[in-house]
């Protein structure tokens, strides 16, 4: 398939998916139960994303490497109420340092 065609079809699907969340009628989601589930949805999706990004190989297998160490440092920073930027920089710095010394 032409690469441009791939780029444009993937983009169209991405936008359609995003828009879908906006055009579902509010009334369809007004049930108290749906409301409760939806309030937990971002936490669940983002937490799963964190786990997959930091703790799996490209094949999906569980692994503990420099990324996991970075995440651990980030969580420590958050317990210490560090600001956003410090959390991110500390995590990246930890992973970079470990790799510089040949770990992870």
């Amino acid at each position, binding site marked *: 398939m032409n690469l*441009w065609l791939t780029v444009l079809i993937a983009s169209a*699907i991405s936008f359609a*998916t995003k828009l879908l969340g906006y055009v579902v009628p509010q009334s369809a989601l007004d049930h108290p139960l749906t409301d409760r589930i939806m309030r937990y949805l971002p936490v669940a*999706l983002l937490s799963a994303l964190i786990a997959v990004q930091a703790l799996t190989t490209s094949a999906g297998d569980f692994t503990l490497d420099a990324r996991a160490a970075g*995440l651990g440092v980030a969580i420590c920073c958050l317990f210490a109420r560090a600001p956003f930027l410090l959390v991110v920089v500390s995590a*990246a710095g930890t992973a*970079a340092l470990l790799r510089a010394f040949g770990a992870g």
Partner: protein
Amino acid sequence: MNSAVAPTAKSVARKGFWVGVATGAYGISYGALAVTAGLDVWQAVTLSLLLFSGGSQFALIGVIGAGGSGASAIGTSALLGLRNGFYGLQVSRLLQETGWRKVVAAQLTIDESTAVSVTQPNRELARTGFWWTGLSVYVLWGAMSAVGALLGNAIGDPKTFGLDAAAPAAFCALVWPRLSTTRARVVAIAAGVIALLVAPHAASGIPVLVAALAAVVAGLLPDRTITGAEDI
């Protein structure tokens, strides 16, 4: 949780901007990897502006770079983008936008803008957080992917700078204020464990979607079973 100072419109806007900067740094590595995978500079930037969803973009260039077909690249990208539809369900209710602003908001609905938006204590700050984060990320992600694509291999492996560890750390910081109740913390841990259990057996994108089950269970359980669930 543990927020020392109550957020203001200014502090929320500033956070949105810094999220954009952090994401922009990641955009450089995306741009460089995209041209390495065989895309030209325009294709790399078009994906950032039109597809605009980091996970899907990395997946798409990953499949292309590995010699996969266009159809499988589109499929993987679409699966990874499905969560944006779920984000939209929640974010659209906070924003209450109409007309063209609704269309722009939909395009800006990604992990980062959702995370900043839904963690705010009220609707006004949620709107501020969404627009500042969404627009900062959009502009900086687009610009930095162009820079990365132009520099190409010259910048070396982004892992050297620990950039692949920055993204999960950023999401962790963004979700953190939302973990103020026991139930929210249980949902977060359960979702992470579910994703890790599913990951070896499913295509990219599926594990995160299956983890939404944690939210469904949390919503179905009556409040009294877990203390501190009255608000999230």
